[in-house]
């Protein structure tokens, strides 16, 4: 594992940049565990201070340090994004592979559900869930709801891959040799589907973070929990741009853009490790 990482860092510039960016942002987010003040506390510092030696990224109109707010916000946003991604990947892989491999009635039932989900608009449903749940709306509930909405396109994609794998010689050979359906799916097909899962996972992560930001900016989430969208929400509430408190909005946006960029570069370069053929062509073999 360490060797793989070393070689990827050495030969793959995209991976190096993505790795450094993501690692830096991760360490920055991790730092909030050692923050001098609790992230939810307000009006403990002088408000509206511009970036200076004492407050590196300035303070908000709510008397919080932008640096430490952002650290906690990125952590929470990433946690939300990863939860959505993992839950929705599990759904997408299970539905896609079963539907593609089993075919027939199973395929019809699963794909009818899938296509129905595709037709449903996401934001109105999430708003509906928010209005129904109101005060009991917590981030895990929101993440579960988003995961339930975020798997369907990828399930279709994975189904199409499995559909073609089902008719390959190695599958027929495996069936003949007496491998069971779960064995064939896990051992023969999953490695083939893995790059698709990784790539859609990155798309899904970016989509989930974007969704969280959208909902938080509009105030449809737990607004007291610091997130990137939540920071922008409060900045808008205090009319930060009009008041000239640009650092309250600019730094969270820069952070999220860097996070997206790092994740994206990681995604495309990790694929090269997973798919042995493109790995070799890069090495010039």
């Amino acid at each position, binding site marked *: 594992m360490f060797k793989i990482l070393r070689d990827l860092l050495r030969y793959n510039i995209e991976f190096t940049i993505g790795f450094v960016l993501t690692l830096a942002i991760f360490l920055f987010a991790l730092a909030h565990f050692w923050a001098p003040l609790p992230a939810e506390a307000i009006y403990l510092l002088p408000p509206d201070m511009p970036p200076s030696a004492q407050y590196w990224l300035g303070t908000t109109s709510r008397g919080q340090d932008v640096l430490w707010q952002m650290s906690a916000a990125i952590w929470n946003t990433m946690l939300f994004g990863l939860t959505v991604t993992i839950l929705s990947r599990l759904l997408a892989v299970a539905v896609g592979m079963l539907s593609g491999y089993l075919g027939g009635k199973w395929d019809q039932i699963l794909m009818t559900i899938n296509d129905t989900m595709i037709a449903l608009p996401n934001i109105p449903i999430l708003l509906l869930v928010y209005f129904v749940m109101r005060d009991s709306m917590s981030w895990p509930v929101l993440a579960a709801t988003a995961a339930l909405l975020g798997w369907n396109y990828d399930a279709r994609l994975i189904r199409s891959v499995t559909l073609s794998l089902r008719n*390959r*010689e*190695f599958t*027929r*050979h*495996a*069936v*003949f*040799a*007496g*491998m069971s359906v779960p*064995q064939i799916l896990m*051992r*023969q097909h999953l*490695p*083939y589907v*893995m790059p698709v899962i990784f790539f859609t996972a990155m798309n899904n992560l970016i989509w989930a973070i974007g969704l969280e930001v959208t909902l938080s900016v509009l105030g449809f989430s737990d607004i007291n929990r610091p997130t990137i969208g939540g920071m922008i929400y409060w900045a808008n509430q205090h009319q930060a741009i009009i008041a000239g408190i640009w650092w309250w909005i600019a730094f969270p946006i820069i952070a999220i853009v860097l996070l997206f960029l790092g994740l994206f570069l990681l995604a495309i370069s990790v694929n090269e490790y997973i*798919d*042995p*053929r493109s790995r*070799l062509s890069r090495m010039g073999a």
Partner: protein
Amino acid sequence: MNADVLKVEGLKAYYQMNYFGVRREVRAVDDVSLTIRRNEIYGIAGESSSGKSSLIKTIAGAITPPLRVVDGSVKFDFDGRTLDVYAEPQAMKGARWQNLSYIMQGSMNVLNPVRKVKHAFHDFAFKHMGLSERDFWAKVEQHLQRIGLDPRVLESYPHQLSGGMRQRLTIALATVCEPDFIIADEPTTALDVLVQQDVLALIKDVQRRMGASIIFVTHDMTVHAAIADRIGIVYAGRLVEEGPTLDVFRRPQHPYTAHLIGSLPRIGDSRKRSALPGKPPNLADPPSGCRFHPRCPLAIDKCKTDNPALLPRQTGRVACWRAGEVEAA
């Protein structure tokens, strides 16, 4: 020991389709009976779409709808243990790979392109061998060496190997459990002649050493001449002639076989080879009587109405009303 390992009786397997209320039935395997002895290589020859692959798939019990067995039976005999492929599918499951292995058509692609070769061996063969992990790999490596492959190939991906190596690997994969019976569907078709020769020699060598029986299919008559002990000629889903390879090549008794053999180029002979008029019949709507009669130069009225049975004649069996009058074309 010349016991029968495989006995196929009156086997009929049809592709049955039902699209938009229109029923279509393609009779790919129609009333085929044959037996294969221990330690024998049996070749099945015939042109494209004559039902060779369907026949062999049906024998292997590896058929999926729309291909269905309509009638007849396929019985294997492994060391006195009789297995009926279509009556006892559960017992067959245990026998596969251990007693019966299958080299599939396009077997260059049998290896999963995104997994190392060793995983294929583990997945397909490990549970059938009943060995410990350590003994299993020792056995696999020994087997690979006998087949002329460096055991290091286990650590490679299929795309890192040449076509010939991959073909050898699939043969190694099919023979590592030392099965009693090997089914091979066009095992050498995608290879060039030199590699083909190598692979054929390998198959023959492995077969002799293990005392297994092989049934294999190819349209390439030279391959049959090279390794088959007996060959069966298939035309339009039916077995039309069967016999020891040398006899079939020297004295074909069915007019179709005579043409097939007559069409082969020979060194020093530059005569133009005549083609058979017409096309192979549509198996969804085969001709009445003998299926070869529309193209047969010897056809008589009887051929149009009555289907000749496959009857013993000299050293083999032949299905033709005028078998005695056929001469090598």
